[in-house]
């Protein structure tokens, strides 16, 4: 009997040791802070960051190994036999699989987590539960690393759920507040809806392939490259599996959790939105892309395109700085999901997006942080001036006050809007090119993707410009308010340098130079290819697509300028929103529709079921028990039951029958005066009668 899992395969033991060590660092951080967090000395913040730093260095080394030393197709695998059931034909294997993509993601996750750690040191300063914060961050990045390194669906699912759970902890970090409490629960449960599908998919795969290892699956998947040859169960499995990705990557119809997830601390938001959590869904799609049948891919693309477009629409009217960015994330993820037609570009966009979106969130974090300071100082002075630190309507003019932040914002915003020379242009362009090419080939409904994609690109440029104009230009509304109230000595201050350090790194990665130094206008020239995947895109289309997306981006910026360039009050309070703006603002009332038509009725139904269980199911039992006992109104032990019975089920057949039995029982009472000896007389009489019967009838 084997009581411990054993290693089945370890192709590159030395390399794997480094990978495991890198993976272990965040876990170590988690364990240390959970158990000794309160006892650690003052430098504990640096300890968390230091562990992540070591992990980043190690993963950087692994990255160099894979992209420099090893062959492009090489991959390191470590497989563990987790369980063995029955004849052992079912492979419950867990494991790590490092190839070029995984090494890249591994490094990315570590790097961004490290940056967020450094940023958080300032942002979260003075929080009494800081030790828990570091612990949760450690667990979160550990689970995310698990996802990107997992060798099979089963391993991935385990870490997948752990990511969900640690995000629950992080989003609900400020658990005393109402918002985070609701948001964390919502995030987890919506993700679980997707996970149900994911799990069913895994089970189907496991039953048919007897394993969930990607290496085996992809080999098998290549059997069905001809269209229409894929078996039905695999299509079904594909539909189930993508549910998980749709939930985790916040795609239609499960995107509702992401805007609410903003309730967590801002650095956490930046982490969730950039390299972790939401990236997991896209990464998973990238991994299983060869297994997805055309129908599944089609569904994904339609959903992705719709999400990209609708979320961008919502982002155009939000007034909360983090909500704008949240819808922006949903929209960008829509691009990636739409890009499943060209998975390598999805992956590319995931990588570039991670940097600039993280940067945007940190920018927002800097602003919110300084506003928090103002709020704090006001409170200390005892002045009452309530305002929402995330509301862009109290910002404005920050260009003067925080010039550094403004510069960073310009870089990240340009990358998001898809301006040439910035990273976002390269990757978004590739996706648009991919769907455009597909539309040209297949026609019909496939044109929906490039059209929606282009429109979303335009809207992206529009909302990010709007954000920039309202936040950084014009005059500061908060200072105006302060002046109005006659409060002096309080100013918006620039953030400490420590917060800008991570942003600088992110900004560097938002230029083309990191990604495709040789070809600033064409993502196809990136050094990432062909390791991410063979590039089949038609070159001749490239110019058309690049130009149209550039036009869309510039158009969006121009539109924003026209609308907000002069009249910055267009989005100020007081101005009532019209029907469409309301619709977009509330994200098409999706939340409310779900609450009204799904969650609400469901909870109502559960309540009814609870009533049914208590009164009908249990009532029937009590009724039956009562027939059997058939007596005893006074008897203490049953009085509760009887009182209940009388009170609740007065009517009905049950009771009528009960009445008859009760009368019978009362008749029986008359012969039962409670005298022991009388009972004995009855017994003796009965025995005598029996004997008589035996002698005279049975014997004869």
């Amino acid at each position, binding site marked *: 009997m084997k009581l411990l899992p054993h290693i089945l395969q370890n192709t590159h033991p030395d390399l794997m040791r480094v990978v495991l060590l890198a993976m272990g660092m965040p876990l170590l951080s988690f364990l240390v802070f959970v158990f000794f967090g309160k006892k650690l000395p003052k430098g504990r913040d640096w300890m968390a960051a230091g562990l992540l730093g070591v992990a980043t260095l190690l993963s950087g080394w692994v990255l160099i190994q894979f992209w420099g030393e090893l062959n492009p197709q090489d991959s390191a695998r470590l497989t563990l036999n987790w369980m063995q059931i029955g004849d052992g034909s079912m492979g419950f294997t867990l494991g790590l699989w490092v190839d070029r993509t995984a090494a890249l993601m591994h490094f990315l996750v570590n790097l961004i987590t490290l940056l967020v750690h450094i940023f958080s040191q300032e942002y979260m300063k003075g929080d009494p539960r800081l030790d828990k914060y570091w612990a949760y961050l450690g667990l979160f990045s550990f689970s995310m690393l698990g996802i990107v390194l997992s060798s099979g669906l089963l391993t991935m699912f385990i870490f997948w759920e752990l990511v969900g759970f640690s995000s629950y902890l992080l989003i609900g970090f400020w658990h005393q507040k109402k918002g985070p409490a609701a948001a964390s629960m919502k995030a987890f449960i919506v993700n679980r809806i997707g996970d149900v599908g994911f799990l069913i998919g895994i089970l189907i795969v496991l039953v048919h392939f007897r394993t969930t290892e990607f290496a085996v699956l992809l080999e098998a998947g290549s059997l069905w490259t001809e269209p229409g040859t894929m078996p039905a169960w695999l299509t079904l499995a594909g539909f189930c599996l993508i549910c998980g990705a749709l939930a985790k990557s916040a795609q239609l119809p499960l995107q509702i959790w992401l805007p609410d997830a903003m309730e967590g601390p801002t650095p956490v938001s930046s982490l969730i939105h950039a390299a972790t959590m939401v990236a997991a869904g896209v990464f998973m799609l990238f991994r299983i892309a060869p297994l997805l049948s055309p129908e599944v891919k089609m569904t994904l693309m339609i959903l992705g395109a719709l999400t990209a477009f609708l979320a961008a629409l919502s982002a155009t009217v939000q007034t909360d700085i983090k909500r704008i960015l949240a819808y922006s994330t949903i929209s960008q993820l829509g691009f990636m999901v739409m890009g499943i037609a060209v998975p390598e570009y999805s992956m590319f966009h995931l990588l570039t997006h991670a940097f600039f979106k993280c940067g945007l969130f940190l920018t927002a974090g800097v602003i919110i942080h300084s506003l928090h300071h103002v709020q704090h100082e006001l409170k200390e002075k005892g002045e009452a001036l309530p305002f929402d630190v995330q509301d862009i309507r109290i910002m404005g003019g920050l260009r003067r006050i925080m010039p550094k932040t403004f510069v960073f914002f310009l870089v990240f915003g340009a990358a998001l809007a898809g301006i040439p020379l910035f990273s976002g242009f390269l990757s978004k362009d590739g996706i648009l090119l991919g769907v455009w090419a597909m539309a040209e080939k297949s026609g019909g409904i496939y044109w929906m993707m490039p059209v929606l994609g282009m429109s979303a690109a335009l809207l992206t440029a529009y909302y990010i410009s709007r954000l920039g104009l309202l936040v950084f230009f014009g005059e500061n509304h908060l200072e105006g308010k302060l002046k109005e109230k006659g409060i002096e000595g309080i100013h918006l201050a620039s953030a400490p340098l420590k917060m800008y350090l991570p942003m600088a790194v992110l900004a560097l990665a938002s230029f083309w130079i990191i990604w495709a130094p040789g070809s600033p206008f064409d993502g196809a020239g990136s050094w990432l290819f062909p390791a991410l995947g063979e590039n089949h895109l038609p070159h001749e289309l490239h110019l058309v697509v690049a130009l149209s997306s550039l036009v869309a981006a510039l158009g969006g910026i121009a539109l924003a300028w026209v609308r907000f360039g002069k009249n910055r009050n267009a989005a100020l309070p007081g101005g009532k929103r019209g029907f469409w703006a309301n619709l977009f603002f509330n994200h098409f009332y999706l939340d409310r529709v779900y609450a009204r038509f799904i969650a609400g009725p469901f909870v109502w139904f559960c309540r009814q079921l609870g009533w049914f269980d208590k009164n009908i199911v249990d009532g029937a039992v009590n009724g039956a028990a009562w027939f059997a006992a058939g*007596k*005893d109104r006074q*008897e203490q032990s049953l009085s509760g039951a009887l009182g209940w019975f009388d009170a609740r089920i007065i009517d009905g057949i049950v009771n009528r029958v009960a009445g008859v039995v009760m009368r019978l029982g009362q008749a029986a009472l008359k012969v039962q005066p409670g*005298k*022991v*000896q009388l009972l004995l007389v009855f017994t003796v009489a009965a025995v005598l009668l029996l004997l008589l019967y035996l002698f005279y009838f049975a014997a004869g």
Partner: protein
Amino acid sequence: MIPTSWYIIIGIFLFCLGVFAVITRRNTVIALIGIELMLNAANLNFVAFGRMQVNPFEGQMAALFVIVLAAAEVAVGLAIVLNVYKRYRTVNLDEIDTLSDE
């Protein structure tokens, strides 16, 4: 040798005596004695019938078993009687009728 029927007749007599005591006497202790009588009637029958067998010990074994049981039963019964007396201040069976529901 005394015929088996004699034993049986005595057994019947003893048994009836026991039943009579249990049913009619008001005192709980007497009723208990009645039970003992019945048990011993049964014992007598065991031994008597056992005598007719090839292996007489089977009947005697059963009788011994009954004696042991009877001892236990008396111990428990008397304990109950004592407790009943403590609670109701009487051992009159007619007055102890809380089993009734009226």
